[in-house]
């Protein structure tokens, strides 16, 4: 039995079917078992090279991919922009061509420019995984959030998930939406109007997505909440008056979280600003699945590396 996974790259999940998302989640469940073994390593990608090219700061996503690749016995090459020839003015295309010439089968890339992974995927023979591009997409985060929610809530059909905070600048929010909606969930966005895409807060949101400016009302009876990181630069840009006011109006407190259904889980993609978008008591409380997200992230990335490997081989 072979997987019906015919994709060569993972750039965004906006055109994925429910079957594809469920396939990757099911493979993630099998990978999670591998991570629980005394020896957390299988030989599936022996002899393959995974290149991690992060042109934007990242710790957890990069380490997560590195652990995933190593748990499948792939060789891992790490490239960061500081200290590399990117600082000498090398273009993105030259950099990735060089990485490919060095024998990379799968290129995992993060870039501050939305769309950069598409540009690269069109021009290299190996497989490309988008580890976050600008405000556009962070597909592996969307998949791991859906996987974490499915493990906590069961089938997501009919479930309502609140995404709270800075949706406008959030590739995580977009990828969460593009993963949760095909699985039958609905999404309520909540956050300051200045941090909400104009069309989405004016009734032009995608099917299944709605905007509720009052966080208390958004959380009422919800099945789960994903709190987004507030980037402190947003205040300098004049999009919010102060972090203190933001925390007061939009911070996820225990009192607010308890408006959801009993036991409804709290997720956060990290890194957190405790005391701003999320209260420490919630982040580390009984509802929090934030640490589970980290473990699940490794498993989901293993699943994607595994599923992409045959296509990368044919292309190389």
């Amino acid at each position, binding site marked *: 039995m*072979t997987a019906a996974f*015919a994709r060569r790259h993972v750039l965004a999940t906006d055109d994925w079917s429910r079957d594809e998302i469920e396939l990757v989640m099911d493979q993630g469940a099998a990978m999670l078992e591998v991570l629980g073994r005394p*020896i957390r*390593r299988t*030989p599936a990608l022996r002899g393959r090279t995974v290149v991690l090219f992060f042109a934007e700061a990242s710790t957890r996503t990069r380490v997560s991919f590195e652990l995933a690749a190593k748990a499948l016995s792939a060789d891992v090459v790490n490239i960061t922009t500081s200290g590399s020839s990117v600082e000498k003015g090398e273009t993105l295309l030259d950099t990735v061509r060089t990485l490919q010439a060095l024998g990379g089968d799968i290129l995992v890339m993060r870039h501050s420019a939305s769309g950069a992974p598409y540009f690269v995927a069109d021009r290299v023979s190996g497989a490309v995984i988008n580890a976050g591009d600008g405000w556009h997409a962070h597909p592996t985060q969307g998949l791991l959030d859906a996987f974490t929610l499915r493990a906590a809530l069961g089938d997501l059909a009919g479930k309502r998930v609140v995404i709270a905070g800075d949706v406008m600048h959030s590739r995580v929010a977009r990828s969460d939406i593009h993963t949760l909606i095909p699985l039958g969930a609905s999404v309520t966005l909540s956050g300051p109007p200045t941090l909400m895409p104009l069309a989405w807060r004016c009734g032009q949101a995608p099917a299944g997505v709605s905007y509720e400016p009052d966080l208390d009302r958004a959380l009422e009876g919800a099945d789960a909440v994903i709190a987004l990181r507030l980037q402190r630069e947003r205040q300098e840009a004049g999009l919010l008056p102060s972090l203190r006011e933001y925390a007061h109006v939009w911070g996820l407190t225990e009192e607010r979280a308890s408006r959801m259904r009993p036991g409804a889980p709290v997720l956060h993609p990290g890194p957190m600003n405790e005391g701003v978008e999320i209260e420490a008591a919630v982040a580390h409380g009984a509802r929090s699945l934030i640490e589970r997200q980290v473990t699940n992230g490794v498993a989901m990335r293993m699943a994607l590396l595994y*599923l992409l490997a045959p296509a990368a081989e044919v292309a190389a």
Partner: protein
Amino acid sequence: MTTLLSSDDVRRAISRIAHEIVERDHDTSRIALVGIRSRGDMLAKRLREAIQKNEGILVPLGALDITLYRDDLTRVGNAPIVRTTEIGFPVDDRVVVLVDDVLFTGRTVRAAMDALVDFGRPRAIRLAVLVDRGHRELPIRADFVGKNIPTQPTDDVRVHLSEGDGRDEVELVRAAVPA
């Protein structure tokens, strides 16, 4: 198409292998059964029930998926589905009996042994199969065999088990003779 083992033959083979496993390692408290997915795990469950009936002891049971240990992953077009492995007991110092439906090239068993030792260091690994059809490509043999069947490498041996296929039967489908 020829029937190699009827439903009664399958039942007798499992019953006999259950006795042989215990005869071989008298200390039943050390024995564990691990079935290779997807039909080996069904056979392992039946063997466990047979051992319980004969000896009154319920031996630990596990299921192993060997996909991530296959030696042909780079040759297949699409990635084969990985199913979950469930080994909920320590394998250290146990006599682990691997169970599969058909022993052919031996490559699956090689992969299963590699996977198993990632869980610990068994005292011994043994192999029980319902059918041994020959044509080994690796130095591997079974300790417990339901039936030895001479085949051509191109033949197809089909095992049906009631848990998944509605009936117990082993069939041999001869390769079409080239015109």
